[in-house]
């Protein structure tokens, strides 16, 4: 929210105003109170408010009268009614006058915050809508994902294969993808997430164009993968599990690629590179990114100078 929404709470009970103020101020809203409809009208005439929360049953100027007046004089103000056990008739009347929402009294902080948030969005012209996968990813991707889900769903134990295919399609497994799989396979979301978080193959972070996987097996350890890894980390400025800012590379550590004979080993995308040294590794990585190639070149030149000087 660019600016805190300004809210006027109208009730003839000071307790209600107090508690609403306490709850909403904590959420960052600008809240004022008015004891009754008359005071509210005076305040609205002098200040501008985004939202008015009002009780219905008040002495003198009651809620319905206040709403009618606001709708006529300041139609842009959003109105929410706070009322104890609202009857169908009052709801109907208020709705016909054009209120946004109602809060049953007594309310809990959570309910009030929730309603306020919705009302603020409403006045700001936003539609409160759940994000759909097609808004984040191309529709073709969503369609492909659905196809995979449908193909697999009759097979028992298909969650892991589906997640693997999904990761191939989308590149990673953000919550929105997992939720779609949860629904499609009729598996609780928590279970999908728990499976995703269990296996190191799955990632919830987007990956780079090229995925560098460094073997952390024993043979590679003994043969010095750590220095290679350090070099890659330093050059790309990322740690294991991260992706470079330009989304070119992501770096992963893998438990033994089973190519111990060639230790230390590194895999980029589908290609395995053996007998790595820090320099060799950089040379290979630079094939995937010209910018890195330049940096490597620079370093080699420097080394040559040292060599000559020596």
């Amino acid at each position, binding site marked *: 929210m660019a600016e805190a929404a300004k809210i006027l709470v109208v009730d003839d009970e000071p307790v209600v105003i107090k508690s609403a103020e306490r709850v909403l101020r904590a959420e960052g809203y600008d809240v004022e109170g008015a004891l009754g409809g008359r005071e509210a009208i005076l305040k609205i005439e002098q200040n501008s408010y985004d939202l008015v929360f009002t009780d219905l049953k008040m002495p003198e100027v009651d809620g319905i009268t206040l709403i009618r007046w606001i709708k006529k004089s300041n139609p842009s103000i959003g109105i929410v009614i706070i009322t104890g056990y609202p009857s169908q008739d009052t709801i109907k009347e208020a709705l016909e006058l054009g209120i946004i929402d109602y809060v049953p009294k007594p309310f809990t902080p959570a309910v009030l915050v929730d309603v306020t948030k919705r009302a603020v969005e409403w006045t700001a012209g936003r539609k409160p809508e759940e994000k759909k996968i097609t808004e984040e990813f191309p529709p073709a991707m969503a369609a492909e994902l659905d196809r995979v889900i449908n193909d697999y769903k009759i097979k028992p134990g298909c969650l892991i294969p589906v997640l693997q295919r999904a990761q191939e399609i989308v590149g990673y497994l953000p919550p929105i993808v997992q939720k779609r799989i949860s629904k499609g396979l009729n598996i609780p979301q928590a279970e999908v997430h728990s499976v995703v978080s269990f296996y190191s193959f799955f990632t919830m972070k987007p990956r780079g164009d090229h995925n560098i996987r460094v073997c952390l097996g024993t043979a590679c350890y003994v043969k010095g993968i750590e220095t290679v890894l350090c070099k890659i980390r330093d050059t790309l400025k990322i740690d294991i599990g991260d992706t470079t800012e330009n989304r070119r590379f992501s770096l992963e550590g893998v438990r033994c*690629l*089973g*190519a*111990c*004979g*060639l230790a230390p*080993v590194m895999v980029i995308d589908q*290609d*395995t*590179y*053996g*007998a790595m040294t820090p320099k060799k590794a950089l040379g290979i990585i630079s094939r995937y990114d010209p910018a890195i190639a330049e940096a490597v070149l620079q370093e080699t030149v420097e080394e040559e100078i040292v060599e000559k000087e020596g």
Partner: protein
Amino acid sequence: MPRLTIEDLQKIKEKHKSDFTLREGGYRAKVTVHMGTCGIAAGARAVMTALMDEISKANVTDVIVTTSGCAGLCAREPLATVEIMNRPPVKYCDLSDEKIKEIFKEHILGGNPVEKYALVVGSETTY
């Protein structure tokens, strides 16, 4: 392949033997490039490609090129085995595309193993 019967297994075995053993198949030589993960990582694909190029350049038709899995000695990959009729197989190691070209000319076409690249001669004990 159609469904097999037990007799077919035997027949396939015999037929394969006659087709693919040098003696009965009428081939000059058989080259096996070892393409396990290690081999591929060490550059077996380039070796394979170079060999195929050479064969097609030389317009030779009686050399079988085949691939196989890991040969065991990962430290010396890429490895290839060259068999010439009536001679025990020779294993070459630490290959490159240049080396395989030389081996093709000298050993496969010329019949003389390239000692400097060779690792070992003979077959392993399998039983």
